[in-house]
């Protein structure tokens, strides 16, 4: 591991910041060593593009392409927007809908993850937030309420035969667990289609790099969940992605039992003993994000799962 004292621009990974209103402004500054840093806000996260080039115009065009792609995906799949394609699907009330190619591809991916995780990862589980509010209080829902809600959870209840999707009345789709990492990969692809130099795309801690700067690998700092801990986990990244899932900030506490916000869709209750944070390295961000999510969902078995599958990871409890 290279020392942090090397004069390489540092990109900050880790904790997601709270949603505080989208801003569509793109700011570009030039850091040391000629690396351009572009920042903007998307998907409830501070986003950053680092690109090594001498051409300021190219840096701006590349960053704009990445930001446009992130905002496009947000507009299309945000459940907070009434005009999004996702909200449209959730309002279909049991009618069959023909979905476009991109949505179909996301549904196929979601189906694969559902199957591969034996039902642990489920894009229909978002509806459980109606009974669970993770505000640090002790208001744990009644088992009867959870069971009632669970009747509307389950990917197997959807009728998905490309290109027709049928979401039964009362059920909801939520791509929140896939979208950000997908957007990272898409934004990176938008840049690398025309630019073959070093670039790092970081959307609130989920990041992917293509090529390292001439001076050395990207130095990425992963924040520790406990904010009073000084030392950060520093990683060198040349190529590939890092994604982090965390369970620190949202929870309920009752009778000394901590209820983390990662819910098991099969039971409707929080996963037991989920790690505080899991950071996974993989070839692409979608893949890394899914692996870290799957690990979190396994609770106490997170490290064992990742080790057995031969995945590179850093786990904090």
């Amino acid at each position, binding site marked *: 591991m290279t020392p942090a004292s090397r004069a390489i621009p540092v990109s900050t990974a880790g904790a997601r910041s709270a949603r505080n209103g989208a801003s569509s402004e793109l700011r570009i500054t030039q850091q040391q060593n000629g690396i351009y840093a572009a920042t903007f806000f998307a998907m409830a996260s501070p986003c950053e593009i680092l690109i090594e080039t001498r051409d300021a115009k190219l840096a701006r065009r590349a960053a704009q392409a990445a930001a446009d792609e992130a905002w496009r995906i947000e507009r299309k799949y945000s459940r907070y927007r009434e005009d999004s394609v996702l909200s449209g699907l959730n309002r279909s009330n049991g009618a069959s809908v023909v979905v476009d190619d991109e949505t179909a*591809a996301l549904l*196929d*991916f979601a*189906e*694969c993850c559902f199957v591969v995780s034996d039902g642990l990862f489920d894009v229909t589980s978002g509806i459980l937030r109606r009974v669970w509010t993770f505000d640090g209080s002790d208001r744990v829902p009644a088992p009867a309420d959870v069971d009632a809600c669970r009747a509307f959870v389950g990917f197997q209840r959807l009728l998905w035969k*490309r290109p027709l999707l049928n979401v039964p009345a009362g059920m909801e789709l939520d791509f929140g667990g896939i979208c950000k990492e997908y957007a990272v990969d898409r934004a990176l692809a938008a840049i690398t289609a025309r630019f073959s130099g070093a670039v790092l795309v970081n959307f609130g801690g989920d990041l992917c790099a293509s090529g390292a700067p001439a001076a050395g690998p990207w130095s990425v700092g992963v924040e520790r969940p406990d904010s009073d801990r000084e030392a950060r986990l520093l990683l060198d990244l040349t190529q590939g992605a890092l994604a982090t899932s965390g369970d620190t900030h949202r929870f309920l506490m009752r009778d000394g039992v901590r209820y983390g916000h990662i819910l098991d869709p099969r039971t409707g209750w929080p996963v037991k003993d989920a790690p505080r944070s899991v950071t996974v390295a993989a070839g692409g961000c979608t893949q890394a994000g899914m692996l870290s999510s799957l690990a979190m969902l396994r609770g106490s078995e997170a490290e064992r799962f990742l080790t057995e599958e031969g995945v590179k990871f850093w786990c904090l409890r």
Partner: protein
Amino acid sequence: MMRRVAALAALLCAVAATSGCSTIGVKPWQRDLLAKPEMQLDADPLDAAIDEHVYFSKEASSGGRGFGGGGCGCN
């Protein structure tokens, strides 16, 4: 020869078109390798067209893959 071929093709079509054919083929998320440009049947169309033109002028057979465009005066 042609009757055997027709029977084989008809069998393939019948097997393929029935929904009970879930064993042959891949799930949509398993199409990563098949999506690569070099795995497409028309991966190098110019090479194929040039070869087709050369062999059409020097041999008695042509085509098979699909339709070439434009005849030429040779053969």
